[in-house]
């Protein structure tokens, strides 16, 4: 009977999806992230992936992956501390650190795992973790697992952060945790101010740059370049599955930190290392960024501006994002479901965010135009948004 109760208690609320006969999640993609993308046999314009630079389906990247698979096979079948430690892994860890502007890094199977594992290894019961209210679920899970005092601060609000820091002297160590780019709205953290506050109060800044690496900064090196933070002595994490167009996550920072984690972080030591083809793919993306970032970046930002302008002209309310992300803000949950369905029916793939991913009455539909899309595709999308804007009747 206990087993029956267990399974009958696993409820999910799909009432909205049933009402509108539309569930935007777990769609059936049958192609690469090409232009167009194929879903259930139909061509869609992809404005949903975090494929900012459009390199996920780049032939040069695919070729590097294929060559690595031929040379090294599918997997090293070992953790990084054992047979996972191969030449491509070590080379990429150092190359990513150099790219970001830090001393060293380690690569995890995912960004989520890196963030969860970090605090479990570093924080102790006498410590305080201060975290942005809207930080990513992986950071929230990570700090909750740490077992020390956690104090959230109001989103991107340095005055509130200062107030908390002013009362932090009783704690052994203080970490201040935030993201560079908040991806549901596209806002960028005032991380230079946060780093200065950390210096003033002897706290350690921790930044998740998942939506910043390969995207922001003069040459795409992320938040530290964007905010001119030379000599950053905090902790840096990022997903490798967004602009870097593959999978995995990194923790980067001072050599002492990375050496410590290599021998004391269970989430790293006991996870199978990323396979060689993945590592080679990320290297190929870094090669392309080194040579082509100005061209790709210009296109990415231009598309963002075109989409944002069109949506505003079509009567939609947008969030005030500074990243190449356009988020339509729709207060009413049912309106959001309706607009999401209209966008999907018009063969545009977008990402709706509803609570608990966003606060109540702040539902969003996120659009990211990768640099692989043609201008013709973007213009087609704009025509469709204008049409939707005329048909939609928001509360």
């Amino acid at each position: 009977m206990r087993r029956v109760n267990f399974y009958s208690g696993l409820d999910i609320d799909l009432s909205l999806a049933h009402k509108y006969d539309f569930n935007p999640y777990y769609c059936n993609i049958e192609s690469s992230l090409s232009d167009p993308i194929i879903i259930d046999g139909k061509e869609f314009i992809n404005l949903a992936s975090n494929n900012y630079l459009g390199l996920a389906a780049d032939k040069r990247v695919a070729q590097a992956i294929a060559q690595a698979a031929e040379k090294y096979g599918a997997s090293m079948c070992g953790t990084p501390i054992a047979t996972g430690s191969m030449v491509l892994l070590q080379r990429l860890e150092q190359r990513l650190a150099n790219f970001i502007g830090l001393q060293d890094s380690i690569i995890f199977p995912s960004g989520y795992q890196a963030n969860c594992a970090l605090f479990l290894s570093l924080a102790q019961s006498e410590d305080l973790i201060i975290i942005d209210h809207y930080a990513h679920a992986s950071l929230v899970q990570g700090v909750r697992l740490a077992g020390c005092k956690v104090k959230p601060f109001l989103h991107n609000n340095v005055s509130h952060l200062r107030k908390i820091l002013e009362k932090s002297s009783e704690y052994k160590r203080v970490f201040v945790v935030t993201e560079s780019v908040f991806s549901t709205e596209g806002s960028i953290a005032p991380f230079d101010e946060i780093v200065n506050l950390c210096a003033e109060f002897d706290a350690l800044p921790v930044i998740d740059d998942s939506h910043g690496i390969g995207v922001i900064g003069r040459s795409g090196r992320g938040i530290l370049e964007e905010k001119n933070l030379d000599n950053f002595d905090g902790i840096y994490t990022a997903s490798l599955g967004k602009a870097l167009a593959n999978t995995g996550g990194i923790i980067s920072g001072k050599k002492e930190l990375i050496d410590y984690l290599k021998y004391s972080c269970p989430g790293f030591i006991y996870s199978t290392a990323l396979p060689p083809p993945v590592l080679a793919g990320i290297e190929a993306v870094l090669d392309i960024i080194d040579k082509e970032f100005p061209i790709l970046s210009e296109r990415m930002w231009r598309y963002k501006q075109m989409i944002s302008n069109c949506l505003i002209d079509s009567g939609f309310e947008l969030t005030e994002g500074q990243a190449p992300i356009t988020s339509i803000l729709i207060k009413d949950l049912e309106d959001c479901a309706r607009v999401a369905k209209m966008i999907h029916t018009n063969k545009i793939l977008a990402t709706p965010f509803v609570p608990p991913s966003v606060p109540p009455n702040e539902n969003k539909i996120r659009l990211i135009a990768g640099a692989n899309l043609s201008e013709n595709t973007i213009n087609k999308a704009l025509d469709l948004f204008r049409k939707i804007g005329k048909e939609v009747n928001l509360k």
Partner: protein
Amino acid sequence: MSLEERVIKTIEENLEKKEKVGLNTDLRNDLGLDSFARVIIINALEDEFGITIPDYEFKNINTVAEIVKGLREHFPDLKES
């Protein structure tokens, strides 16, 4: 300032958006507070009144009036101003 006024002022100052808060305001249904937002409010009340509120005290609290009642019950020495 009464205890009620101090609680309301503290909550209003620690929300992501400007909202009018009253004694009957429901933290979840009216303000849409998630778990972290509730922690922000609890921490702010602790600072405002110089107290430590155990996590379980706020677990089943929904309205501002219930916060005030809870504070009076558990911290009878709280001053009104």
